């Protein structure tokens, strides 16, 4: 009987359980061209090992995901970004 330790609140707690909607940052900010020379910016679309993140994680639209991929590959060629690393950030 004493083990009945269930906590009950008089008013329901306002915990936000809904996930934040992902959005395409290029569409939102109106960015048209993704520069391959800007390594710091492209870093947002890479994981620790320097791989391109899928758009299901970043929320980028397909149109811009293709451009991101193209820019990252160009940046790798001119040694602005590494092809392979560990612990990039």
């Amino acid at each position, binding site marked *: 009987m004493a083990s009945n330790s269930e906590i009950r609140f008089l008013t329901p707690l306002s915990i936000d359980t809904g996930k934040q909607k992902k959005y395409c940052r290029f569409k939102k900010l109106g960015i*048209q*061209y993704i*520069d*391959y*020379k800007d*390594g710091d910016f492209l870093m947002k679309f890479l994981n620790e090992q320097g791989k391109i993140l899928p758009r299901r994680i970043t929320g980028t639209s397909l149109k811009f995901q293709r451009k991101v991929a193209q820019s990252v590959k*160009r940046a*790798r*060629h*001119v*040694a*602005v*970004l*590494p*092809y*392979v*690393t560990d612990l990039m950030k």
Partner: protein
Amino acid sequence: MLRNYETVFILNPVLSDEQTKEAVSKFSDHLTSNGAEIVASESWGLKKLAYPIQKKKSGFYFLVEFKGEATLTSTLEVILKRDERVMRFLTVALDKDAMAYAAKRRDKLNKSKATK
């Protein structure tokens, strides 16, 4: 047909200042003598590479934006490839969004230079 292009090349870091200048002028001369108009050129100086190229960890970056014939890029790339001082190069055709971005970037650079 005239188009806008952008070329980035990385020169060997062991070269002296004069040698780098000479190499840069060689490429820009090739462009201008073949009827291209150099829109902008930018020297990034000695920059650390993300990975070693030819066992070197840094390189002298140089960027040229030019307007010219499509056949010019292939001859420029041949020259860049043959030159031993060039470690890496990349030529990109600029579309209208890229042109707008490049102009904006140039303005920003000029402004930051002016305030210095």
